[in-house]
């Protein structure tokens, strides 16, 4: 094959690999991209020197270089995949494509450096090289091991692969020639084993890190959705990837001989690692592919692609690329340093504080963010440092923390649940919750012991009450949250270091956090004006919160908010949104609205003077059965409330803002019932508040209160929100 053809073939394979690697990002479109996970010891200051760490992480330049843009990670992953393909001997193009897809489906950015060292160390596998073990081979082996030791926590797998190669080579050479010829390999084996043994006994934490894969295997199966072992659980795609890799390996085993037993044993070890631990799936997949590559067949370095195959591959790649580009935020994909722009800057917190991440999987993200300079993490993602008991206790505490269960209660295993004891021991100052853990955010935001001090699209940061510096920050943050909800022109608020809307998708999640905090107007203000399921869910949630607020405080159904919420929820239900979480949330919002309506005897349906048809119409509107609602012209013209409800519904259905003017005119009609006029004024005030037209909002709220006072309306609770909103907007 000419050099030019080789190059074009390699580029062709690389392009296909790039496309396949992009698809993996769809699984976690908002993932942070780290070349390796920065891992520093946080457990206890007194033990901070006690655990092995990635040596190079102490270099600032290296640490900063860990976060790379997604495009770079994809390109690198694709290059490594092609390199692995290059190692293999698969003659069939379809087989190569399957391998690319499997490896691309398995890759994660934080394993790329380990992949690199694996690919390098695989060059010395005896069944991949015809040449005997020379000093160059020893040098290569040493470089792989030292490189892995300096840059990854998973150096054990590289050492295992290198030792496999050395043992395999020794056995083969002894069988083929004589014992003396394997001295180099034996020296390599003894030296590596000796160094590991000495380091395990002399360097604190080295042994634990060396046995990290075994710890992961032993603790597999105890994982939970929010556990510190989140990385250990498999998804369905992971299972399929592993099964595919296993089948490829089994197919290749036909070429193995009796002398390849060390390689077979190593493959069984990697298979077990991949089977039992999600965290090691990419490594296991790569290692299995590399080890199973056989020397018995002639190995085409990069099989040439025919022109039609090349064009077909490129076309497929282009189509998938377009789809990926539509589904992924390109801004994130191309941005050179996306993460820091998306995370709120907490560096102004100067005190010594302890931090608890409710999802320790996000340790690298915390490390990469602009974190407080004197912050110390209580728990990180180094699972090898936990004993089983600590692990169980911590997992339970995390689960209870997210459910707001502070006090002791009885667990099914007759042990005690509740976070009180555990939190008392750990005593965190900051609590970092994922911004989509809404239940936890709601519970914690209601807990007087915690204050929300920062929100971004990925994290919501709570500060413990009682800490002098954090209390000041909490006051500033509270002013901002209240300003977003009720934009009092006299308020002076600070956004920097408290709120970071980030990308479009981040803003939607920030809106979710504010909704979880029961600040629906604030949520609507940060929600981007985009047509997406996520944004519609958040918008519907805001309207639902407003309707619930009105029902609980004013004691009547907010027709405006109920109709808006029902319209959106009905639309989302008819769309049949793909995510189960969205479907469940939509169903729960519908249920909450039903309960809010049923909770109060509302003026909309309990009016004694209306006929059966009007009652039916009103009920249909409130329950969201809009198809049963007849036209306004068909309803009783004397029934002003039904007329108003239909006007609002039709206006919103047709996206026609004229209904606002129509009902605005009606408020000035004195023949309209006072309670209806007052209610309309309230809605108009709410709409102005939503649109941040504060002076108009004040006017409408004051008008509503005036009507209630003049007409001596005997339901003082119906103006509770008017009074509250006015108070917030004017004082």
């Amino acid at each position: 094959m000419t050099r030019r053809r080789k190059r074009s073939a390699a580029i062709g394979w690389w392009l296909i690999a790039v496309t396949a690697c992009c698809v993996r990002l769809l699984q976690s479109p908002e993932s942070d991209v780290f070349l390796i996970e920065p891992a520093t010891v946080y457990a206890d200051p007194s033990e901070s020197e006690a655990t092995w760490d990635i040596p190079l992480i102490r270099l600032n330049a290296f640490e900063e270089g860990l976060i790379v843009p997604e495009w770079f990670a994809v390109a690198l992953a694709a290059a490594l995949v092609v390199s692995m393909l290059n190692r293999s001997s698969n003659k069939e193009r379809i087989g190569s494509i399957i391998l690319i897809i499997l490896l691309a489906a398995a890759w994660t950015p934080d394993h790329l450096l380990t992949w690199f060292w694996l690919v390098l160390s695989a060059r010395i596998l005896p069944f991949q090289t015809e040449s005997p073990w020379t000093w160059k081979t020893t040098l290569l082996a040493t470089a792989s091991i030292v490189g892995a030791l300096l840059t990854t926590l998973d150096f054990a797998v590289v050492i295992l692969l290198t030792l496999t190669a050395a043992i395999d080579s020794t056995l083969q050479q002894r069988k083929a020639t004589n014992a003396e010829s394997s001295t180099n390999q034996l020296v390599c084996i003894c030296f590596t084993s000796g160094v590991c043994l000495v380091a395990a006994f002399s360097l604190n934490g080295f042994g634990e890190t060396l046995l990290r894969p075994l710890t992961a295997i032993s603790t597999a199966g105890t994982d939970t959705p929010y556990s510190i072992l989140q990385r250990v659980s498999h998804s369905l795609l992971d299972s399929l990837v592993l099964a595919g890799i296993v089948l490829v390996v089994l197919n290749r085993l036909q070429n193995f001989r009796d002398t390849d037993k060390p390689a077979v044993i190593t493959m069984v070890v990697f298979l077990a690692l991949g089977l039992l631990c999600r965290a090691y799936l990419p490594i296991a997949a790569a290692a299995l592919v590399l080890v199973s590559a056989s020397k018995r067949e002639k190995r085409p370095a990069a099989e040439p692609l025919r022109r039609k195959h090349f064009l077909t591959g490129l076309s497929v790649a282009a189509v998938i690329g377009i789809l990926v580009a539509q589904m992924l935020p390109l801004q994130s994909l191309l941005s050179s340093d996306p993460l820091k722009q998306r995370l709120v800057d907490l560096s102004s917190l100067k005190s010594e504080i302890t931090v608890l991440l409710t999802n320790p999987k996000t340790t690298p993200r915390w490390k990469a963010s602009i974190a407080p300079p004197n912050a110390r993490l209580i728990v990180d993602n180094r699972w090898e440092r936990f004993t089983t008991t600590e692990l169980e206790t911590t997992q339970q505490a995390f689960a209870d923390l997210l459910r707001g269960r502070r006090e002791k209660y009885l667990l099914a295993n007759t042990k005690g649940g509740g976070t009180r004891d555990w939190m008392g021991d750990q005593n965190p100052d900051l609590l970092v919750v994922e911004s989509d853990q809404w239940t936890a955010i709601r519970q914690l935001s209601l807990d007087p012991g915690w204050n929300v001090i920062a929100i971004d699209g990925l994290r919501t940061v709570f500060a413990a009450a009682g800490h002098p510096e954090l209390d000041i920050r909490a006051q500033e943050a509270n002013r901002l949250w209240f300003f977003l909800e009720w934009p009092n022109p006299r308020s002076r608020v600070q956004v920097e270091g408290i709120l970071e809307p980030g990308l479009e998708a981040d803003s939607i999640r920030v809106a979710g956090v504010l909704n979880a905090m029961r600040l629906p107007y604030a949520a609507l203000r940060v929600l981007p004006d985009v047509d997406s399921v996520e944004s519609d869910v958040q918008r519907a949630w805001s309207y639902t919160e407003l309707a619930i607020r009105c029902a609980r405080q004013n004691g009547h159904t907010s027709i405006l908010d109920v109709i808006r919420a029902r319209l959106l929820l009905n639309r989302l239900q008819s769309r049949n949104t793909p995510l189960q979480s969205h479907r469940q949330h939509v169903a729960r919002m519908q249920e909450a609205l039903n309960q809010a309506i049923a909770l109060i005897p509302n003026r909309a349906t309990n009016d004694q003077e209306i006929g059966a048809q009007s009652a039916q119409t009103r009920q249909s509107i409130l329950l969201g059965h809009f198809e049963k609602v007849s036209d306004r012209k068909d309803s009783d013209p004397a029934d002003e409330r039904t007329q108003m409800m239909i006007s609002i519904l039709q206006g919103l259905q047709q996206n026609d803002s004229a209904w606002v003017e129509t009902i605005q005119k009606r408020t000035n009609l004195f023949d309209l019932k006072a309670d209806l006029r007052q209610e309309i004024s309230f809605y108009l005030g709410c709409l102005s508040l939503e649109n941040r037209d504060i002076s108009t909002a004040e006017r409408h709220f004051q008008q509503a209160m005036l009507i209630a006072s003049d007409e001596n309306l005997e339901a003082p609770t119906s103006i509770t929100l008017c009074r509250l909103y006015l108070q917030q907007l004017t004082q």
Partner: protein
Amino acid sequence: MNEYVRPFSLILCAVIVWLGISTAINMARARQSNPLETESIPTPAANAVESGWADESTCIDCHDQAEDFGRTGHARTLTTASDDVSWSALRQLSQSKIGDTERVSVARTLSGKILAQRIPGGGTKAQIPLDWCFGSGAHARTWVTTLTDSLGQTDLLEFRWTWYQHSQDFDLTPGQPDQCGAGHLPQFGLQFDGARAWRCFACHSTRLPSKAGQLSFEKMHPGVTCQNCHGPRQAHVASNGLSRNPAWEFKDRDQQVARCAECHRDSAEQKPETIRHGNPDIARFQPIGLSRSMCFLKSDMSCTTCHNVHRPMSSQFPRRISQCTQCHDSEASHQTSCSAGMMDRCIDCHMPALDTGRGLEFVDHWIRIPDEQDGQQ
């Protein structure tokens, strides 16, 4: 190569089986990884377990203790608001002084639903349904309304007015503000979030399935009954009593007291400065005082030394000497006897009832010699 074929065929089969299992597990996990679904593993609450529960009407077939148990306060500590016992107390609200002052009344609809009504200034009335009645009536009864929030969690409204046994009348519920809240629901009481609502029901029920914070009242078993303390007993019943679960058996008295303290509370739930004897605020949390009593510290006594939890309180302690004479028998020369020369009514002096507010009295379980201020005997 042939030597590899057989083992690898086996591995292939194992992989396929494993894939099937992992697919099923992953499908289950996919549900759990939902941000709304935080009510899941690692270990669920004991009362949230879905299966393994026995029909408690069968307990009486073998256990005499079950005969009287239905009359205990524990068994009756949670009923529906429409229950006759609840309604008979609740209907007094309209006639009560506070009901009149705060213009609140109750009504029962034809369907049996209980509605609380309030007419603050005359004219339009505000009303809410009442769903559950907390308390056996031994001390008091408090009603609640359950609410659903937009995340599907069960919130709670604690009714502002409580019926007290000692006065046979209504007064404000402990913890409620002196003035009625502003707003539709606040005028009827305080609202509790999902976690707090769960805790209320968890201590007043035996079985409480919930999903993502939403309590399943249809499957709930109200009241603290047999399986609350003895664990789910379906296997025990099915095996005619042969099956035992050692995890649910107390290994020592500390475990037993800790079990009671899960609802009756322990010291860790109180601020340290409040833990002093004679403090009415902690008198209702009996394990706190008991665990500091010299009687407790110098013996092996536990809650059940004095209380037979299987019998109603009314049938115990006829002479108010409790079980004191087990250790303080005046006829036994080697035992410490009462220096005041009293032969009965020990608890009147050594465990006085303290007024915890609204006239609600609880026996102080910090057993001590009166007038000792430092708690040391």
